[in-house]
């Protein structure tokens, strides 16, 4: 199994890379390929089992867009053909049409999804997140954290990754969190999403990475922390916005 991590030298904020570390703990045989800005990506010549990209800085977004621009058609082909992508935090915005700060356009995105990212230069939006992932036979509770300079705008009614119970979706008026196109999973939830959500991780490994029935790493400890967080986040007395 090959997991390609795009630009870990810049897309590494808020503990996001632990998503990959955790997958590696769960799947010791997996090969992790780190692709730097100046490298030719692995996906350019073959279909990795998973392409991961994490949160970056605002200038990092511009660099990532520049680096991926020449592979835009290939990325589209990968998404259309069902290659797995997991993109967290503002890494997702790189795949949008454009990024706007205040009233001013910062740059065009890769334009692969019909969304626009709008941010305020000095304002930070922080919240907890509680939602559901529709796993077919069951709904899996998702917990996480959001800490962003802005939001995404566009219609994700038919391509929502998580259904929000508490917290915001892609923007404060939208209850759908993240985007899901074929096997492209993008979410504004930052940090170690997979570590914090072991039930989802198990489903993802078994159903998307097709690794069979796996025992996820440190399952008992991860489930203990997860169950406590689900309980806290479900408590109406827990504040949700910082």
């Amino acid at each position, binding site marked *: 199994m090959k997991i390609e991590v795009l630009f870990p*030298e810049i897309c590494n904020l808020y503990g996001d890379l632990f998503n990959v570390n955790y997958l590696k703990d769960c799947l010791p045989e997996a090969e992790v390929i780190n692709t730097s800005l100046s490298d030719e990506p692995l996906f350019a010549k073959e279909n990795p089992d998973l392409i991961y990209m994490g949160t970056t800085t605002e200038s990092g977004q511009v660099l990532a867009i520049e680096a991926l621009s020449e592979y835009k058609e290939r990325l589209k082909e990968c998404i259309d053909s069902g290659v797995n992508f997991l993109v967290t935090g503002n890494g997702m915005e790189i795949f949008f049409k454009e990024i706007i700060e205040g009233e001013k356009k910062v740059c065009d995105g890769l334009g692969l999804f019909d969304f626009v990212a709008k941010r305020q230069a000095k304002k930070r939006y922080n919240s907890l997140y509680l939602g559901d992932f529709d796993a077919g036979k069951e709904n899996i509770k998702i917990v996480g954290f959001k*800490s962003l300079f802005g939001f995404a705008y566009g219609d994700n009614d038919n391509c929502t990754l998580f259904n929000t119970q508490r917290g915001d979706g892609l923007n404060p008026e939208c209850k759908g969190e993240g985007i899901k196109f074929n096997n492209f999973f993008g979410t504004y939830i930052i940090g170690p999403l997979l570590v914090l959500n072991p039930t989802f991780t198990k489903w993802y490994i078994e159903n998307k990475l097709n690794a069979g029935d796996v025992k996820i790493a440190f399952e008992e400890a991860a489930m203990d922390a997860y169950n406590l967080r689900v309980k806290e986040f479900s408590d109406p007395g827990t504040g949700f916005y910082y």
Partner: protein
Amino acid sequence: MNKIRFFIALWAAKMSIIALRITKHNGTNFPGVVALKICPNFLKYVSKPAKIIGVTGTNGKTTVCNLAIDMFKADGRKVLDNSMGSNIDSGISTSFINGVSIFNKCKYEEALIEIDERSVPVLFPYFTPEILLINNLTRDSIMRNGHPEFIGRLLTEEMPKATKLLLNGDDLIASNIAPDNKRAYFGIKKMDTDVEECINLINDMRICPKCNSILKYDALRYHHIGKAYCPSCGFKSPKCKYEGYDVDTKSMTVKVSEEDGEYTYRLLNDSVFNIYNVVAVVSLFRELGYSKERIAELLSQIEIVKSRFSQQEVGNYTIVRQMSKDKNALGASRAFDYVSGRPGDKELILMMNCLGDTQHWSENVCWLYDADFEFLNKENIKNIVVTGPRAKDYYLRLKLAGVADDRISFVEKELDAPKALKLEKNESIYVFYGTDSIVLANNVIKNIEKEIAERGEK
């Protein structure tokens, strides 16, 4: 109208100081809060000392300020400071309120102000530091500060043109702030403990700021702190005017070289973090015109603030208080690295939970995954007690760091944590606590003392 509003605000704030004194309340920010509530432009109108020295950055600014304040006191110099209040607008307003008469006449010629780096947009429009020392810019609270590039951008955009910057030249994020301002750099020369490849989870300066190629480091201390160069375009860390070297941990001294020679100064703590703090203070006082000899004299007369790091001997044990600012991955990593490198067997109590967050919502734990818990996977760390609201998260994180089950103890309530200590003879017990759990940490330490007494010395 604005002036009338200002004087109402000033007098209300002055009265609140008297009320706080009478009722024996601390309320160190309260007068500033009152003033800003009545007059949002209060900082514009309040009289300020003619010369303001600012200290900002992510880590170490309080230590640097405390050192500088103590040195000014030892020198008999009357300098207004905000050490009793906070470093945001309300705390700084409180200091200025204390510094003026009821007629808004300033009683001080000079001020040394610790400045929260995130607060500069509401501060710098109203005062211009003559010198601003920036110790470092690293990751801090995810919710508040985002990432250091954002803070760097904020500082550059808000920086008054007349401010001279005194910057850590070994920090490429801090050293690139406000490139058009006058500046001098301080740093530390290559040390024996330096490496060339980063071993930390956080390194926010992996690519060249000029050409985006992967940077190399001649000497990397930790994270992005060190001497970098770009093999592609030739970019490199700036030349430092003041550079620490020849650290002697036995005599606890450091030499600082300048163009016209070197001088030896006293160290107050042997962690690299604190060596930077001393070099920063020496550089600041040199920029203020002090002689090397006088700085060395003043440094020899002061002590590091005890609330941040102190130790006590209890029977055969050493109990060490180790403050580790909550939700600050880099601060935790530095503390973990330092403690794990100390000689002898040790047990740790991890209780850096953000208690404020626990009361209102739930702590964002992403920072745990930026912090190097891997440093705690060491043979001489015999037991790590995780406790408090986020104990289960610490437990999981330690497991991910490879720490064996038999070296982790889970205790729900902090005050019960001492019961889980193994208390092997001659070991050290480190209590890691956050900025809002100082009182709780003191009570935990009392319970450790009781536990030692009850179990008897082995």
